[in-house]
């Protein structure tokens, strides 16, 4: 039964991967695309944190206190990285409005986006393999999506 559930989740996790890029693209602007992807990543971090808290409360043997703490630490850093990403997006817009060279701003946005996705990966690492297998798969899917966003950034 467990393997069936995990297999099912892996399959639908794959569907998320294929379905997501279209929803990340806003049709508004590249800045909006990045902010949208960043917001979804932040929301995903919160969802995983809440799932881990629930799993720990339900079954401390499934998710230990240490794992719960490590996920909380990673999600906290993810939040800070999200704020930093938003700051770089604002700086980019300001530089663009001022007619300044955008090379440094583009690099800053890319670096901030990488940081956000890296912290999401660290949330995954905080969950030992086999703890909540489906989350492992989904986080990897999201990281793949972030990679696609990075490749497709049209700043």
């Amino acid at each position, binding site marked *: 039964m467990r393997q069936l559930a995990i297999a099912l989740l892996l399959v639908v996790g794959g569907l998320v991967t294929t379905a*997501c890029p279209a929803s990340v693209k806003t049709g508004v602007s590249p800045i909006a*695309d990045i*902010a949208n992807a960043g917001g979804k990543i932040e929301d995903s971090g919160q969802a995983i944190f809440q799932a881990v808290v629930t799993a720990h409360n*339900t*079954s401390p043997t499934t998710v230990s206190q240490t794992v719960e703490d490590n996920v909380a630490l990673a999600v906290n850093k993810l939040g800070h*990285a*999200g704020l930093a990403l938003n700051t770089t997006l604002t700086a980019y817009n300001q530089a663009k409005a001022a007619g300044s060279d955008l090379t440094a701003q583009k690099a800053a946005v890319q670096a901030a986006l990488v940081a956000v996705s890296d912290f999401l990966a660290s949330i995954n690492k905080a969950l030992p393999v086999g703890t909540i297998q489906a989350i492992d798969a989904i986080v990897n899917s999201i990281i793949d999506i972030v990679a696609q966003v990075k490749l497709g950034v049209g700043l």
Partner: protein
Amino acid sequence: MITAKNVTDAAGIIAAFEPDITAALTAYNILKTIWLTVNPSKTEADYKAYLQTASQTNIDTTTAYLVAQGYVETPAGSGNWTKPTPTP
């Protein structure tokens, strides 16, 4: 041959895995909703506000959790957390 013990063992095994499966399914359903949600008629400012709010939510909820667990953030608002060793 299926015996009462087999059934009991199987039920016990499934029960042991239920938190795992339930948490995974819940998380999956929420994540799916997040990633498939489309926000028509939103402006760039709206998407930036979304990023800002979601990021701040992550900070606020985990800060509350970590403080409750005895962690200390130094300096405040930095995201650098340590857990002081209890003095005997």
